[in-house]
């Protein structure tokens, strides 16, 4: 049998403090498993952002609606990749859909992913874009034209009735999509929350904290993508849109911060057996990623900035506000990645014997190395670039008519 000789030719054990079970010395879930919840979180969060327009009719967020949906799609397409690279037998991955073990939260992955991709995201995008597909398939030549023609699915009806139906379907799907997005990311939180063997992971708040940090990261990503797109196209930034995004980001961040604070307050108050090692973990191995990265830079600083902007936005020039939103969004994105790191890697750094710590020896190259993780984080942006090129033509702001149907102002 072929062995992975790269690591086995010369084995260097990780540094262990105290006592860890022998099988726990090497970490099993690597940065790939850090990247996966991050990506699905961005998917869910971007979708929630978009649904604010459709379901809650926040007019100010109109300009960023299609971009949010495309962002969600770009990241969704990349979501299975970290898992696939992490599996010991990726060629057996279909088994998870052929014989799904219903008692395992991980078995949900195939179905939740397929449902969200096909029945929520692609369907809502199709209903939203259908009119444009019909228009573009008539005007555009070449490969792109063929693509648009395929995407119409052979339906060319763009009468008023059909467009009203499209809009109604889009609203229904968006409504169904919100719990679906929660499920897509919440089940990941439940995977961790269901592991009673690990006191850092196994608690009730885990799925909810995951969902809210996902929303926060998704909105931040949309902020940055919107700023980037307009800057690249030398278009004016819509400060009302940014203000609205900043407002929702602030609210979501308040809830997220409260939940994470509640988690810690409860742990410290109840002080179960594991509290000693978990305190050592937070203050020691996870000091930079948790206390500095996640709490200070990723939560406290953006809270202050965004909260300040909520109170004093009249006194702040739009240009400065824009830069503050950029800064907050970037810090939050970094902080949420740090949070995923703290959960996944942190949970494996201490022993289930509660008596010691091991170290994470992160590979550089190799299918579980951090170069791979960076590549997997960059890939969605490349895909998003392609999607924007295909589906967000220059100078065509989209607004909604009174019936709510999407109308491009320039085809």
């Amino acid at each position, binding site marked *: 049998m072929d062995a992975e000789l790269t690591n086995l030719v010369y084995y260097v054990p990780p540094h262990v403090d105290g006592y860890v079970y022998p099988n726990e010395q090497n970490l099993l879930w690597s940065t790939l498993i850090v990247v996966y919840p991050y990506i699905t979180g961005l998917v869910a969060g971007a979708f929630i952002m978009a649904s604010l327009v459709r379901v809650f009719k926040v007019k100010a967020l109109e300009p960023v609606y299609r971009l949010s949906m495309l962002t969600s799609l770009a990241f969704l397409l990349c979501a299975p990749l970290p898992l696939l690279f992490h599996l010991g037998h990726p060629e057996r991955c*279909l*088994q998870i*859909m*052929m*014989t799904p*073990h219903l008692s395992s939260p991980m078995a949900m992955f195939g179905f939740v992913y397929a449902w969200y991709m*096909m029945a929520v995201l692609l*369907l809502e995008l199709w*209903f939203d874009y*259908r009119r444009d597909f019909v228009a573009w398939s008539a005007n555009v030549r070449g490969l792109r034209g063929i693509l648009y023609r395929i995407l119409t*699915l*052979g*339906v060319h*009806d763009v009468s008023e*009735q*059909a467009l009203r*139906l*499209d809009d109604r379907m889009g609203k229904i799907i968006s409504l169904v999509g919100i719990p679906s997005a929660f499920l897509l990311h919440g089940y990941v939180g439940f995977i961790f929350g269901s592991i009673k063997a690990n006191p850092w992971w196994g608690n009730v708040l885990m799925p909810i904290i995951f969902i809210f940090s996902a929303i926060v990261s998704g909105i931040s990503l949309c902020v940055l993508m919107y700023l980037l797109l307009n800057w690249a196209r030398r278009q004016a930034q819509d400060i009302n849109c940014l203000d609205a995004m900043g407002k929702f980001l602030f609210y979501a961040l308040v809830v997220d911060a409260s939940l994470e604070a509640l988690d810690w307050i409860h742990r410290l108050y109840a002080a179960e057996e594991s509290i000693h090692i978990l305190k050592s973990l937070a203050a020691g191995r996870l000091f930079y990623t948790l206390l500095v990265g996640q709490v200070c830079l990723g939560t406290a600083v953006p809270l202050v900035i965004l909260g300040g902007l909520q109170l004093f936005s009249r006194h702040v020039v739009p240009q400065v506000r824009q830069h503050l939103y950029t800064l907050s969004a970037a810090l939050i994105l970094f902080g949420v990645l740090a949070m995923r790191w703290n959960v996944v890697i942190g949970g494996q750094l201490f022993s289930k014997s509660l008596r010691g710590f091991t170290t994470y020896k992160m590979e550089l190259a190799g299918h579980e190395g951090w170069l791979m993780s960076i590549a997997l984080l960059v890939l969605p942006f490349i895909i998003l670039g392609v999607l924007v090129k295909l589906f967000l033509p220059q100078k065509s702001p989209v607004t909604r008519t009174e019936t709510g149907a999407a109308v491009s102002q320039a085809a």
Partner: protein
Amino acid sequence: MNERKLPPQLIRLVILTVAILGLYGLARFFLTPPSFGELGFYRALALEEATLRSPVFAGQKACDECHSDTIKKVAKAEHKTVSCESCHGPGRAHVENPEVKMGAIFCVRCHGVDPARSAWIKQVDPKKHYAGQRCAECHVPHQPSEVP
């Protein structure tokens, strides 16, 4: 528009959905491995496959076939709880081909002094207890109370 007829976009979508679900059903039918689910949520054949490895240690009974005298002697003395293969190592190769020699471990492995070792086992400090001499000079491994 005819009230009964579905709008064209929905018809296309329904066709697509049925096709996808049909494909999934077919895949599930063909790709589920045989014997799955017969005994529980697993491949029942895996139970048999788990038994196919050949044992490496032969077991006391196998030694008894040729060495029953020694085993009877050991069974009467203090080492009666120790099986042959504890000290002599895996015996499969020797059972199949008696030419293959068996080794023996160093007695200190069990009898070296150690604070975590229970007091029921006699322990010596090899540095102080006749250092440099072989254990077999004064002790008979199979019958520890006897002298050689």
